[in-house]
């Protein structure tokens, strides 16, 4: 059996800062297969973005240090691969989309030139992208790349794509720029796409379009996606699977319908209880007290225990393992059996 597209095993990451060594990722386990869209959710400061950045080795080290674990991309451990080879994967096999579209486009070049460059670079790895016969001349390939760029812009919903290729980044609005970045990430037909809050800065109507595009790309090209977001609504409507992160741990993971319909971990339940829904009565939302702990001196055992309404002494004894809830659905909570009987919050 071929290895899965991405398999993160027991990943430990520390960051050295003024206060000391922070254990920012504390044993992450995650497997992404082709055709899956994994939502990575949690409060800010839980390590969602660091997990995404680790996959493309974009976390500056030092101050970061990988203490343990592996990130296997099609069976090859990215942490042990020479940087040169990781760079070759980045942008071609592994695509990235970030939240802030302004800093990720070169203001001095036309959008078209930037897209064509990415397409040509990616074509070195996979010539089929350009859809022209092997050994075609530079001219032909450039023309094909240009055609592809226009097609991609059109697919991400930019009107008059052909003409807009000649525009500079500052001539696009924020939402449009984010679409350009998404086009750029998709043009090389990556096998794995990491999208870090790609729609947070956008209006809901644009967000809906872009999420639809993302889903379409996954089914058309059979790629794997990690979608980092703090919006459970986005996860519910877009993802096939979800992993809930808290303070450097994945506390619950599984198929999205399973997790959302039967949240097993108290943290997942608390997050869901905080979202205003159609049924919420005014003043009745349940906020989650406290804050994400300092990761230099994390609480012992379960890191969520200090904020957990159901915590008992045993919770602080050791880090809870991921226990199966049903099928692929796992949750890292020792009181799982008991909480099963609880009603939904």
């Amino acid at each position: 059996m071929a290895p899965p597209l991405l398999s993160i095993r027991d990943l430990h990451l520390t960051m050295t800062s003024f206060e000391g060594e922070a254990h920012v990722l504390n044993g992450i386990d995650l497997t992404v297969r082709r055709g899956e869209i994994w939502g990575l959710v949690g409060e800010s400061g839980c390590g969602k973005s660091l997990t995404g950045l680790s996959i493309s080795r974009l976390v500056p080290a030092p101050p970061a240090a990988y203490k343990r674990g592996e990130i296997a991309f099609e069976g090859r451990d990215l942490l042990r691969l020479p940087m040169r080879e990781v760079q070759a994967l980045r942008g071609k096999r592994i695509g990235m989309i970030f939240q802030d579209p302004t800093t990720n486009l070169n203001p001095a070049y036309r959008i078209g030139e930037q897209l064509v460059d990415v397409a040509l670079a990616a074509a070195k790895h996979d010539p089929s992208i350009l859809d022209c016969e092997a050994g075609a001349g530079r001219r032909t390939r450039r023309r094909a790349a240009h055609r592809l760029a226009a097609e991609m812009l059109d697919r991400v919903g930019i009107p008059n794509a052909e003409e807009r290729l000649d525009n500079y980044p500052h001539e696009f609005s924020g939402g449009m720029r984010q679409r350009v970045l998404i086009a750029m990430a998709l043009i090389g037909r990556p096998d794995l796409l990491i999208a870090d809050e790609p729609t947070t800065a956008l209006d809901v109507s644009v967000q809906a379009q872009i999420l639809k595009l993302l889903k379409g790309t996954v089914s058309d090209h059979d790629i794997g996606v990690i979608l980092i977001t703090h919006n459970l609504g986005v996860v519910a409507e877009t993802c096939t699977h979800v992993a809930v992160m808290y303070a450097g741990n994945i506390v619950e993971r599984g198929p999205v319908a399973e997790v959302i319909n039967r949240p097993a971990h108290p943290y997942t339940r608390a997050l869901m209880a905080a979202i205003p829904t159609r049924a919420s009565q005014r003043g009745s939302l349940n906020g989650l007290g406290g804050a994400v702990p300092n990761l230099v001196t994390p609480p012992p055992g379960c890191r969520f225990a200090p904020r957990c309404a159901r915590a008992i002494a045993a919770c602080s004894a050791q880090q809870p393992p991921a226990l199966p809830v049903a099928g692929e659905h796992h949750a890292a909570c020792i009181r799982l059996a008991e909480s099963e009987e609880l009603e939904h919050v």
Partner: protein
Amino acid sequence: MTEIAETPPIEMLSTGNDRWRRALFRFRQSKLSMLGAAMVAVVLFFTLFGTVLAPYPEHVAGGVATADRFLPPSAAHPFGTNELGQDVLSLVMAGTTVSVLAGFGVVLIGTVIGTLVGGIAGFVGSWTDEVLMRLTDLTLTIPGLILAMAIAAALGPGFTNMVIAISLSWWPGYARLVRGEVLAAREEVYVTAARAIGASPARILFRHILPNTVSPIIVKMSLDMGFAILTVAGLGFIGIGVRPPTPEWGTLLSLSRAYMPDYWWTAMAPGMAMFLAVFGFNLLGDGLRDILDPKARR
């Protein structure tokens, strides 16, 4: 309202002290910044105690010992003696006071004038901005040293006049810096909040805008200290600064010029002192910029 009473997590409640310790931690990461700080500390030490610690205080006061003219460096005179038989080390140590205080005076006066001009120009805008900034540009078109020379010549020699003369050519840089910072700070949300509360323009400028422009000003002051000391020495060198017998680096250097290269040691000590001071303040300024104003880093 139990869930409302969110207990503030301990690490959020670090004291104001913590901010300084954090800054110090980052400052210490850079060896060059630390070297600069050490050099500046030495210079400041001699500024305060140079006159007192000088091995030959009588020479500092103007006493001469013609019998000991042009002695080369030795144990008794580590940097030799000059044409009047005075100990060069003593003169340079005492000269630190004049040079550094003059430099500091120049930077301070320049900062005050520049901050007022730039702050008002940026805050009020429209024609006030135009008038003040064109005045600034006008001052900038005249070479600083020439302008200072002209002013010093008009006012007559002396410590205070020299400081005033240089300051009057020194403020435009600060005016431009502060204007830019004020224009940026004016758009901050907390300034809008203050306007929505009904705060007066003066309150907005002095309470909300100017305090937030302090960091880049401090950085520029530190970077400028070295150049101010050089300019003071420059005026001394061309003979319109502090007059002998008051020891001053530029004057010392200028006097020793006549005896080069035979009696090279007379120029050695004041030159080295200037180099140390300028280099030290520049390194310190760079270090401060990295911790106070990281966005300006290239």
